[in-house]
């Protein structure tokens, strides 16, 4: 197990730093490719959401220079970035990833979006071949653990997600949401969810604008809303009371002068901007205007802090699940490490057995079917008996620290050649066979 994870999140880094590291969806495949091309990295993938950027890798020796990768890739100086980074290895990396997927490390503990985001990041990395054996195992397990946490604890129930916090805030501004209009800018998953919440609370109609007009139409149809061309954004935005914006624009798309225009056209009726984009879409200068209430992703975090406290208990149960799952995973992965050796040992002995049977046939001539069966049973029995102790020893050694030494000794004793990069997927299949062959 040579997992290494480096990253920063909403707790370790302010929005300003996260903004500089955020990777747009379109550039994610390239980043994954760059990552796997980096020295010492066998497999790697990147999770980039509004609240976190994390690089998860499986390395050749467990000591890849991931900080160096981040400095090179984002052209950032070590002193700017390093104070905000956390780094985990092996078991700690597994635990961290399980916690992220199970939404225990989220800004809003228990919110469901993060699992979807991790799944998407995984799919992207897998598509470009950056994730193969070990990470594949790790992520499949992480998704299963997340599901277990969700079903066995109440962490995810009555979810205080960003969406529901947004609804509460909107109610603090508008009282009732009946008859209010919602404008979605940037057709992302999170804004769609927020919009769904708002509509469920009585919002009247919805407008959708997106750089790709077709996506805007697609989303608008879901809500029976109206798609707006991106160039008409500023002329129509004032019709909305609540604006959910999540574009990937590198700079703020709403500046102070836009806010002033909107308010003038709205006769100063207040507007609520839910800015879930990183970098932010609403300029801080505009948020200062009377009548403009803009909450960015960090503000929403503050607003939900109190709710998070209520969930601490459930989160503790979830942590216990995670701890036991980490142990299980570690044991499984370690067993996988010895599986190739067991398989080649079996193959080696099988080859010897076949060769010896052929030699006997050559000496004794044609054998009767009964004799064939007897020889087959005899040789197989001997081999299985001889193999039993080494295999058991290998399997139990796998769970301890001397696994590598034992594996090494066995390989030398029998002169075994194990393919260096045999995929764990194949190994897993063979592991099952090991069990059935005996």
């Amino acid at each position, binding site marked *: 197990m040579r997992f290494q994870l480096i990253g920063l999140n909403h707790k370790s880094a302010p929005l300003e730093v996260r903004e500089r590291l955020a990777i747009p969806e379109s550039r994610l495949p390239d980043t994954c490719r760059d990552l796997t091309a980096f020295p010492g990295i066998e497999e790697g993938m990147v999770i980039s959401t509004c609240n976190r950027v994390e690089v998860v890798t499986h390395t050749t020796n467990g000591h890849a220079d991931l900080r160096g990768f981040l400095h090179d890739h984002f052209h950032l100086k070590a002193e700017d970035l390093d104070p905000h980074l956390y780094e985990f290895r092996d078991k700690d990396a597994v635990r961290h990833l399980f916690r992220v997927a199970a939404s225990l490390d989220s800004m809003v503990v228990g919110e469901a979006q993060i699992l979807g985001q991790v799944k998407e990041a995984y799919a992207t990395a897998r598509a470009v071949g950056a994730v193969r054996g070990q990470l594949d195992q790790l992520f499949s397990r992480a998704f299963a653990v997340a599901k277990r946490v969700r079903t066995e604890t109440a962490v995810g129930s009555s979810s205080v997600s960003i969406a529901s916090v947004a609804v509460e*805030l909107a109610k*603090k501004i508008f009282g009732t949401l009946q008859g209010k209009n919602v404008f979605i800018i940037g057709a992302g998953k999170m804004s769609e969810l927020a919009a769904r919440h708002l509509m469920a609370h009585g919002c009247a109609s919805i407008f959708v604008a997106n750089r790709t007009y077709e996506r805007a139409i697609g989303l608008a149809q879901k809500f029976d809303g109206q798609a707006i061309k991106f160039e008409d954004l500023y002329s129509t935005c004032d019709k909305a009371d609540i604006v959910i914006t999540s574009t990937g624009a590198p700079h703020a798309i709403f500046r102070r002068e836009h806010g002033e225009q909107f308010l003038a056209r709205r*006769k*100063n009726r*207040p507007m609520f901007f839910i800015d879930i984009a990183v970098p932010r879409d609403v300029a801080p200068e505009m948020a200062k205007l*009377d*009548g403009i209430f803009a909450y960015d992703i960090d*503000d929403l975090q503050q*607003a939900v*802090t109190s709710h998070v406290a209520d969930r601490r208990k459930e989160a503790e149960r979830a942590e216990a699940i995670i701890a036991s799952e980490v142990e299980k995973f570690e044991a499984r992965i370690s067993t996988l490490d010895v599986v190739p050796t067991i398989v080649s040992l079996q193959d080696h002995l099988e080859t010897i057995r076949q060769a010896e049977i052929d030699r006997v046939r050559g000496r004794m001539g044609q054998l009767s079917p009964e004799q064939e069966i007897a020889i087959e049973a005899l040789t197989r029995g001997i081999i299985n008996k001889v193999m039993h102790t080494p295999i058991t020893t290998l399997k139990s050694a796998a769970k301890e620290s001397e696994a590598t030494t034992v594996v090494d000794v066995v390989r030398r004793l029998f002169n075994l050649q194990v393919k260096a990069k045999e995929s764990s997927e194949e190994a897993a299949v063979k592991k099952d066979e090991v069990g059935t062959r005996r």
Partner: protein
Amino acid sequence: MSLLWLRFALGCYFIGLVYAFVALSRTSDLFSRIAFHAASMGMVFHFVSLTELFLSGHIVWASVHNGESLLAFLSMAFFMVIYAIYQTTSPGVVVFPVVFFLTFVAAVDQQPVLLTQFVSHKGWLIAHIVLIFTGYAALVLSFGASLIYLVQERRLKSKKPTSLISFLPALEVIDQIGYRSLLLGFPFMTLGLLTGSVVAMTTYGRVDFLDPKILLSVLMWAVYMVMVFTRWNSGWRGRRAAFLATFTVVAALAAWAANYFSGMHRFGAS
């Protein structure tokens, strides 16, 4: 006897006053319920006091004593109407102290009365007083709403987690309370001033616009009108509306103070 009832009412309003100060720093559902019931009880005593005064036949409409008592009662009545519609006691933060102050002054005896012995048309005078005071009560409420609006706006802008659990009503609800009070108060204020002019015309045969009382009243009315207009025309709210409301209230207070030195509309010894 009427004074005794009024002092009972004052005791009840005192609880409201304490609530107003406490509510500025913390939220308590229980206390807001206690304050509301105390205020309701105070209103009952207040009503008894006013009725008794009226039935005794000794009522001097134009006395400061009775006038302030009436204004306090009307302000409370407005507060109750708002409570019935919006189920919120938060305007009490402003209304309770004002009502307490007015009742307190009214409950202290020996007030000077207005020089109204020459007034021939008592009906116009009563109409003038009731209309103007209703206008004032609405103004107090609108002023209160605009201050609460500022507080709530600041809370929401500060983005602290408490902004979600704040006891204040939603921003738009506060805005509605303020705007409706404003709209309701304006015709009363206007008619109050007109009936006042009628009283002045019938008593003195003229309206002296240079008289400080009348000058300040007209100024107050003008700012009131500007408030209604800016709100209707460009939706002024928040800081700008609070600024105008404060100005109007200051003008109203100045107009009240002018009773002490106006030639046409002043206090004298009873």
